[in-house]
């Protein structure tokens, strides 16, 4: 995941560390830039896909480098760092909230590595609303202190740092890179060792065995996926369940997406001959990618007992494409139109009872009787137009009686039921008189039945107030011919 290195360049960083025999001294700023270089080298060697940015902060934040993979450029930018005034941590936080979100949005987890002497000022009175965290994006805050743990504790900085970490819901770490009473040589070597340990600990390539039935392929995920909120761990291997059409999957909501790249299997790579020729030994992930691309399908994959993802071919340019895994929100029912993922299976599982069963299709329909308000006739009279539109509709069909008597009575019944539910009995009286008046306004060319139906409806509407919700006003029977 993207990483920001933020260097504290407040005046306190200018302070001397242990002076050596020649009287030369190392400033903490120098140590900090050494750390920065080491971090960059670590990433350049082990995590080439990582985007890094370098900032320096004091009372103001200076952007030394944008997010980039150009390590030479990043190294140069560290050299540009200068000592300034005092550090204001809140300033850095608000800067990061803008800087990171601008590039990666609110969803992308990001590492923030702060290199400091531990003296971060964080006004006690600034508290963040309980529903929010320090950062507006999912941020892991790693504070690297150029100070020994004991001096951090004695100076009270530790309490402040812990407080900051707590504001970030505890996501992150505090590492002290130095030990007390060190001479110059020891300072550098201790720092380097501690930093190495920290980096190896926190920044690992996420490798997993991707299984498709009995076939499997070792793949690396970039960026490393983060376990869901419930803390459910990932399975030892990601297992493909089956395949779906892109159109059926239908742009599901996704928590995060990750590049899948095949890596040499650890077991086979023990053999030195095979590691040399790893590009020549076939990998299942490549077959999978090729077929998904050609068939235009996605593979549904189970990543933990309760979490699923989809693997698909992702075009990264017009000619190039790669295998990408998108993690679905937690739970087996996270995509409503796929239904319960545990209920997905190949058609061969359907019982073959001789009778022709309708093959189920996507999207999964909501259960019967739970249609949404916009998908069925719904009464909403909070606005006068709502009621007026319904009445106009009835009047329109009233003018075309008896041809429209079906529609007329249907709408009238709907209105009647709504008025009963809302306890709006006055309206029924009103509509009744409205229909009576319509009777008188009928043109001379109108069919006599229109008048009969209108007065019948007007009468019935008034009389049936107590008849209950289910009572239906029926058209007046005017056809007395016997049906054979």
């Amino acid at each position, binding site marked *: 995941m993207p990483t920001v290195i933020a260097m504290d360049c407040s005046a306190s960083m200018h302070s001397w560390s242990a002076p050596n025999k020649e009287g030369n001294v190392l400033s903490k700023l120098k140590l900090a830039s050494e750390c920065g270089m080491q971090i960059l080298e670590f990433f350049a060697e082990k995590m080439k896909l990582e985007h890094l940015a370098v900032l320096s902060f004091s009372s103001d934040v200076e952007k030394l480098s944008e997010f980039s993979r150009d390590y030479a450029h990043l190294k140069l930018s560290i050299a540009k760092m200068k000592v300034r005034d005092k550090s204001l941590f809140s300033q850095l936080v608000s800067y990061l909230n803008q800087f990171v979100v601008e*590039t*990666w*949005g609110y*969803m992308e987890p990001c590492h923030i590595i702060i290199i400091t002497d531990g003296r971060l000022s964080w006004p006690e009175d600034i508290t963040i609303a309980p529903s*929010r965290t320090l950062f507006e994006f999912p941020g892991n805050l790693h504070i690297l202190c150029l100070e020994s743990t004991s001096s951090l504790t004695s100076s009270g900085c530790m309490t402040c740092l812990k407080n900051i970490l707590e504001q970030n819901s505890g996501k992150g770490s505090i590492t002290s890179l130095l030990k007390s009473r060190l001479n110059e040589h020891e300072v550098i070597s201790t720092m380097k060792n501690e930093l190495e340990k920290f980096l190896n600990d926190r920044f690992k390539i996420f490798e997993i065995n991707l299984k498709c*039935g*009995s*076939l499997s392929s070792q793949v690396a995920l*970039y*960026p490393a996926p983060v376990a869901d909120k419930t803390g459910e761990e990932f399975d030892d291997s990601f297992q493909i*369940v089956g395949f*779906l059409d*892109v*159109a059926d999957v*239908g*742009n*599901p909501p996704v928590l995060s*997406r990750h*590049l899948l*790249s095949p890596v*040499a299997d650890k077991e086979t790579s023990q053999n030195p001959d095979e590691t040399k020729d*790893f*590009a020549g*030994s076939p*990998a299942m992930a490549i*077959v999978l990618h*090729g077929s998904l691309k050609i*068939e235009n399908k996605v593979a549904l994959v189970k990543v933990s007992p309760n979490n699923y993802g989809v693997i698909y071919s992702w075009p*990264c340019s017009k000619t*190039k494409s*790669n295998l*990408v895994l*998108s993690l679905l929100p937690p739970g087996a029912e996270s995509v*409503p*139109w796929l239904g*319960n993922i545990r*209920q*997905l*299976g*190949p058609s061969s*599982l359907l*019982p073959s009872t001789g009778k022709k069963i309708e093959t189920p*299709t996507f*999207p999964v*329909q*909501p259960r019967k*009787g739970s249609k949404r308000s916009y998908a069925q006739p719904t009464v909403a009279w*909070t606005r*006068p*137009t709502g*009621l007026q539109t319904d009445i106009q509709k009835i009047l329109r069909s009233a003018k075309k009686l008896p041809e429209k008597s079906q529609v007329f009575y249907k709408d009238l019944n709907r209105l009647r*039921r709504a008025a009963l539910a*809302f*306890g709006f*009995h*006055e*309206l029924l009286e*009103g509509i009744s008189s*409205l229909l009576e008046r319509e009777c008188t*306004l009928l043109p001379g060319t109108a069919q006599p039945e229109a008048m009969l139906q209108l007065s019948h409806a007007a009468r019935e509407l008034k009389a049936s107030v107590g008849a209950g919700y289910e009572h239906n006003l029926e058209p007046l029977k005017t056809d007395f011919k016997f049906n054979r």
Partner: protein
Amino acid sequence: MSDSDHKTVFLIDHGPAMGESSKQMVEYDIATKSRPQGVVPLAPVAKSLWTSSIEALCEYCRIVWDIFPHNKLLRFVVGDTSARFLNSWNKEEQNLNHLMKSLSGVGPPLKKADGNIMVGLVSAVGAVAQQTSAQNKLLSSGSSVSNRGRIVCITQLKNDVHLKTIVDCACDAVNKHCESASTNEGMLPIDSLELVIIHVKPFGSNSAITEHSLTPASKNPKVLVEAQDVKATRHGIAIANRLLHLVQRHFDLSVTSITGIPMKEEQHANSSANYDVLLLHRRLPGTAIRESEHSMWDGELSSTMLLKWGTPKINYNELYHCTGAARVSPVDVNSRPSLCLTNFLLNGRSVSLEHWNNRPDGAAAGSGGSRQMTHMISCRGSDIFLHALGIFRPPFEDPPNISDGPGGKVKDYRISDFGEIIKHNHLLPLGGRVKSGTLPIDGAMAKLDRRTRYWPLVYSKSIIFNLAKTVDPLLEAIVKENLTPDDVLQCQRVIYNLIGLERDGAALPLVTSAGSLSRGINKQSKREEQYKSMWRELEDLLRAHSSTSSKHMDILDCMLECIGKGKSSRTSSSVDKLKSNVRSGANEIYESPESPPPLKKSKTENESSARIRPQKGTQSLLSMWTQRVENTNSQRHVEFYGRLASDGNKAVLYPNFEEDPNNAQNTPANQDRQTSRHGHHRYQGHHRSGTGGGTREEGGRSGRNTPQGSKPKMAKKTQKPYPQ
């Protein structure tokens, strides 16, 4: 299930005060063009406070049920002298139809009834204490549930003292229920309760209460109280709007305006104008949290996001990165623009939308460069969803080419064959249609496992997958979970066909992985070597599948017998023992299906097959002559099949001797005579080639399909093992 919005109870005052007129008239007889001039419109009617409140309440519920079809439950208590529940926590009773029906049974408040809302309030608290099925499920799975809820009370209060009595009553009820919850089945103690009291009053009324936002009640800190005072102005819209603001806050909803929807004008069908539709939906992840505290406001909802209508031309076969999808509900469901939009979407169209920032200088965000599609609205299974699309760069932007990694240089991947696996394992929503106890997803994984048990990734690593036409029926059948007798027969035919091919010395497709082939070896031994690895591969395949069922095992047995393996140790007395041996062996091998078979076995195979195989290498005149004679003889003579399939040219007679009680009566001498005359009959039965005629034809057909040149001869030979 532990959220405070999981359970909401509405307490609606049915006392005489609610029956009061809101003193605001509704015109229902509006003038239209078609009405003749001079007609006096009918007098408008006034809604009662009750009607206004119920209409507003129905809108609140409509939105909740539209957006949260599961797990956000609403209940309704009508309180006058008694308390009446209109529904339960049951899912079947969570819809507008059910609510409207039960409401009609209540009717408007009676003018002279003596009302007291306290009884209703106590019942409402009791409803919050009641377990819902979702909570019950969680509890029975061993998780802890924090039982929170909300009561929205719509009533008319006298003054602040009246308000305090109601709050106190609720506090007492919560305490009482907490005490009794432990002893009552299906009840849970209430961990926290939000009590929202909405004081509704008619236009012109001066009775007022002090409004305040959520604060803990002094008597019981578990109860948070909020008081709202709303006048039923403008036909009661004030109450409706107040409830809209409440539903937005209670369920953390966003208000989004879809703007610039082109719509044909009702009057002038040729021109079209642009309309806006206001939608409510759950806040989409990936959007900034914006505080909007307008819940004490009676004005219309205002949008927090403007999305401009883009194009309805969306490629369904393209997968967009979508950071969130939320069900929507139109604020005004029956307005013409809303209906137009929802019907358009319900017909299966999707529309791309573009985030529109209304800047003060009038310039829109996307005006400068190309338009960026930020959102999409579409219908999935009769629900309309608003999708937020990922607009930021992916963290793995510009990755290295997949062909630069491991396996990238390999060229002959079986990509189209894998496509077949994909098609066979296409998932469908089987929900409830599968009777057996296993979950469909497990069945899917088992099927995928069977299809891939033996599956070389590249063409050059396999002979049998290159022998498409000959071996296909076997490859198709062997991956099935249950084999029909026909399937078994098919598989056996394939094996016999292969034997036929080998006997004829038909060339096999060249496979590079048989790297053991060195130069200098003559054609003959090369071919032998090829057949050897082919049989080895077939054995691996069959062994990998032999654990599926006993019929799969039979096929492996058949193949082993045909190539003369496993027969050597098989005596008439130890058939079963051997079978179990093979089975356990197969299980071991199943662990690693691609491991080569033990060396010893292939040696025996080599010896046996070498003797049966027609010699075709160096031919002398004599050998050519004898071969010709043999050929003519073979028209009449049928080689004893038992010998063909045996090891070391010796056939074991009556392998199932002990198994068959009928045969046991026969004397050895009898049997011998019978066998020498009709030996093939015995074996015919053994190999289940009961439909001999069909078999012969089949064999001939597949023989013709092989690339080998000696068609007629081969066809004849394949017939031979199955005489009539």
